[in-house]
Structure formats: C-alpha cells, structure tokens
C-alpha cells in the first residue's frame, strides 16, 4: 500500500515537473552579495589543457561549463550565508534554507544551492534575480543535481569536495 502511494505521488510529481521543466528549484537569495566569500575558483576556458591525471569528475565539470564567457572562462566565487559557514566547512549536514551561491563573475551567473528537509535543490539566476535555468542545458536544476547529488563519492549533502583549482594545486 505504501509503495502504491509512493508510486502515485511520483507520477504526480512527474506531471508537475513536466510543466515546470528547467525552472530553478532553489529560490533566489537577494542578499547573497552580503554573504562572505568562502572560496574563489574558476570556470575553466574551453581551450584549457588538463593534466592527464585530472579526475573524471573535473573533466566532466570542465566539459559542461566550457561554454561560459564564450569559452574564455571566468572567475568563480563561492559565497555562503553567515549561519552556514561552519556547516560548509564540513560539507554538511545542512539545515534548511539557502546554503551557497557560486557566482560566475564575468557571465554573471548565480548558481544557488538550497536545502529543504536536508535535501539539496538547485537554481540558476542572473544578477537581476531572473531565472536563467532554461537558457542552457547545464543551467537546469536537474543537471546540477546530476552532479551535486548523484556523485555520491564526491558530493556530500549536495556540495562537492573536489575543487577545480586543485588540478593546478601543485
């Protein structure tokens, strides 16, 4: 009976998501510019030559976002709400609410990570707070979830542990 209920709910959710496909799930946090910067990284350019031992996860990440800034890359800033800085340091577990934003500085893309019921959801916005998740497949929330929640070995509680700049750390 419980399984049947779950099945019906899943079908309902699917119908709902079909109507709102590509819409950001996470909301836009208006005060994100006031959040502290916890990490500075980059969206690597399209012509980057990665070292041969670069992890497959990073390779997939670079491939996914190489289109940003017409393939020229961009600095990336991670900001976390003050109340979640400590949670971010341990990669969760996270309390509900906004968890982090990643800002692609040149392109002005703001990726938002939010937690609901301990589960991560994602959204993509511009600096004006407009939902841009439908403008590129890699900005869809499902695409974000595809990496941030499904790489169970790398991404814990919806945030990932392997920074892009680690590739060039040495």
């Amino acid at each position, binding site marked *: 009976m419980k*399984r049947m209920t*779950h*099945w019906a*709910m*899943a079908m*309902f*959710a*699917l119908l*709902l*998501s079909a109507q*709102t496909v590509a819409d950001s*799930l*996470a*909301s836009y946090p208006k005060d994100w510019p006031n959040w502290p910067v916890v990490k500075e990284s980059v969206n690597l350019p399209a012509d980057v030559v990665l070292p041969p*031992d670069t*992890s*497959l*996860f990073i*390779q*997939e990440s670079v491939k996914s976002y190489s289109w940003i800034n017409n393939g020229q890359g961009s600095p990336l800033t991670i900001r976390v709400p003050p109340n979640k800085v400590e949670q971010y340091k341990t990669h969760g577990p996270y309390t509900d609410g906004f968890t982090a934003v990643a800002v692609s500085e040149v392109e002005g893309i703001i990726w938002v990570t*939010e937690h*609901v*019921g*301990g*589960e991560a*959801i994602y959204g993509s916005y511009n600096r004006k707070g407009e939902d841009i998740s439908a403008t590129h497949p890699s900005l869809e929330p499902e695409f974000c*979830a*595809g990496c941030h929640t*499904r*790489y*169970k*070995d*790398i*991404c814990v509680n919806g945030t990932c*542990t*392997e920074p892009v700049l680690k590739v060039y750390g040495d």
Partner: protein
Amino acid sequence: MRWSSKLWRHLTINQMLMVSHLVLIAVVILGLSYSRYQSELKVRVEQQVSLAKGAFTPLLTLFSSAISGRNYANLMMPMTRSTIWEIEDLQFLQLSGISDYHEKVVNVRYAPPLRQVWRTDVEAQELSEREATLDNLLNLKSQTEANNHVRLNKLDYLINKAIADINALRNSIQLSKYNGIHWNPPPSAYQGYFFDDEKLALHIKLALANHNGGELWAVFDASELDTFKRTLLTDLVKEALIALFISLALIVAVTAWIVSPIKSLASSMRQDIQRIDPTKVPETQRSDEIGELARSYSAMVTQIHQQMNVLQKLSDTDPLTALGSRHKYNRVAEAFTAQALSSGQHVVVIIADIDNFKSYNDCYGHTQGDNVLCQIATIIDQVVGRSGEAFRFGGEEFVVIAKAQTPKQLEQLTTELNQAVSRTRIEHTANPSKGIVTLSAGAVIVPPSISNNIKQLLEVCLDRADKQLYQCKHNGRDHVIVEPY
C-alpha cells in the same frame, strides 16, 4: 618400436608406400585443416570481439566517470539503459570497480533481454536512510500551507526523487537475488575475451579509466559464432575428404609408377641369366632412378654373358690339345646327335686310345708324351674335319662323334683315324712289335632310324665303344672295331 619394425617387415614396398604416403597426407591434411579452423574461427571471434568492444567505446568515459564518483544515476538513467539495450546480442553486462574517493565497491548489472538494470552493492542502511528521508519530506509537506506553492513545489520534487531512489534501491535488492544470470566470469587467463562454446557465449572484458580500477564484463549471444563454427567444420571436413581422395588417387598412381617397373625388373631377373636379352631389359628407357637401375642391370647381364662365354670356352677346350673337353662333349653331344639323326644321317661314337702310352711316358718322359698327345689330337681333328667333333676325355683317351650319309663313310673315318696315326711314324720303342705310336679305336654307328632317348643312346654307345676298344687292346692293339648300334 619392435612392433613397428615387424609390421614394416611384413609389408611390400607397394603397401609400405601406400601406407606411409597415406599417413603423411592424412597428417598434412589434418594439420592444415586444424590450423585453418583455428585461424578462421579466431579471426571471426576477434571480429565479433572488435564489434562488441566498439559498441562500448562511446560509453567507457561515462562508465568510468560514474564508477569514479559512484554516480549510479548516470549508470541507470533511461538514456544509458536504452543505449545498452540497443547493443546487438548483448545478454548481460556488469560494471564493477572501486570508487576513487572513498574506495567503495560499485557494481551495476544489466540484463538487456529482461530490460533490467540493478545494483548489487545496495546495503540495507542505504535503503532505510532514503526511506527516512522520504518520511521526513512527506512530514514537511503535510506541515506546509497549501498556498505556499514554491515550497510545495520544492518538496514534491524532492519527494518524487526520494521515491524514485527508493524504488530503484528496492528493485536492485530484489534483482540481486535473481538467479537467471548463469554466466560465470571468464577465467583470469583470458584478459581480452573468452568464447564459451558450451554456453554459446562470448565474454568481453574491458578496463575502465577510473583511478582505483574498474571493469566492464559483457556477455554476448554467440550462437551465430557457433553456426559459423559448424559450417566451417563441415566445409573443412568436405575439403579434407576431397583432398584425401585426390591424394589417394595420386598415391595409387605414383605407387604403381614406382612399383610396377620394379616388379617388371624382378620378373626379368628371375629368368635364366643366359636367356636374358640385355637389349630387351624392361624400363631402360626411363630417365629416372629406376631407368638407371634397369640400364645397370642390362649392362650387368651383358657383362655376365661375356664372362660366361669366356668360361664356357675355357671349360669346352682341353688345355693341352685344344680339342673339345669332356664338359663340351656333355654339352653338345646330345644336340649334335639329335640334329644329325633327325636330318637322316648316321652317327658314329668312337672311343680311341694311344697304345701303351704309359710305357711311352716312362720311356720318353712326360714332356715328350704331351707332345705326342698334341700330335695325335691334331691328326684326329684333321681326320674328323667337318663331319664331327673330337674330344679328349683324359690321359690318352679321345672320343669322336661324327655324322655321314652312310655307315660306310663312318667306318672309313674310324679306320682312317688308326691309319693316319700310324702314317706319322712316331717312334715308340716300348710299343712291342710296332716300334711306332699306334691308335686303337672302338666305334658304334647309330642309324637315323633310331629314335631312342638321345642321352641314354649316347651312354649306351659310349659303353659299347669302350668295350670294343678293350677288345682291340686284347687283340694286340693298333686295331679298330666298328659295329652298328
């Protein structure tokens, strides 16, 4: 080894050639057929392996990346599944490895005929955690106000995701107990592929690119390969039989070509050597070794004939007097007599003896005795002439066989032998009342009407002539007695 040498000993060259060539040809044909079978099968299997590997090549990065970060979703998503279901003849696929960050076992299986994919590494704790998450999300949803559409939307998404995850986990747990997978991983010795011809399965193994190592193990339906194998085997057996048949015909022909001239030569060699005509020895026209053997044999026969002629001449001639020997008499007398009688002529057999010749030797010495023997022999030879032949039987004893149209002529010939010797007037003081060398002779004349066995006839004649000679000696020597047969 002893039994094989015994076996060979009992075989003729013909059989030996047949058996050895047949064995040789059979070994060659079997060896070539086996080699071709292995080679063609290997090429076909490797072709299938290449196709199979090619089908996975575009997916290897996805698989490696997923195992590296334990991304089950990527491995089980509909797009991945449908790509795998499209791979022709794929019966089973397993992706396994160790994740690169937390070194956890990752194992996902696909059963294309069942259109199923499942994890075999699901732990009970993982399922209970997801169920707890779902309960929590459902609880939160129930506490959310109905007009808070944004939050409800977020919760519905997460609930839907949790349900999907739970269903997938339960499905994996259930399918992990599925015992329809009856393939075992190929032996470790087969690093690239393994063709299981019992289960008609082609196993492929590919290494994944994640740091801690991963492996793709795929099983393909290889019944097409089995069909190819059977067809190949049938074709090879047919070809081998045709080759064997042609070889057999060639072996029979070659064996006959080699053995029949040997038999022909052997047959020639079995003949009386004197009757073999060296110019008609078989196979001398051949240009091969057998021709060489035949020509050598022909030359040998010629040489033997020459040596036999020399020997015959030596044995036919009395070395002292040059008259015919007793051996020659034995050889020619029968033919001479038979020929003369059959042509209507009379034949005389004469035994002559120099009178008191022992006394001559005693008186004049053996050298002078030999000289007398030679003189008498010459006289006898001259008297006999063309009418017959004279022989020295030994010592001072001579035998003559001669032929003539009338008995009178033969009687005269016998008397002439006696008189011719007397006319030479050779001194012989030890020959009482004569003082010269004299000759006595006994003779038997055979008329042409006699048709007895010639050999026996001659024996009788010699015996009777010898008795006549004895009678001559008894009558005082220098005497001749001739009587008809």
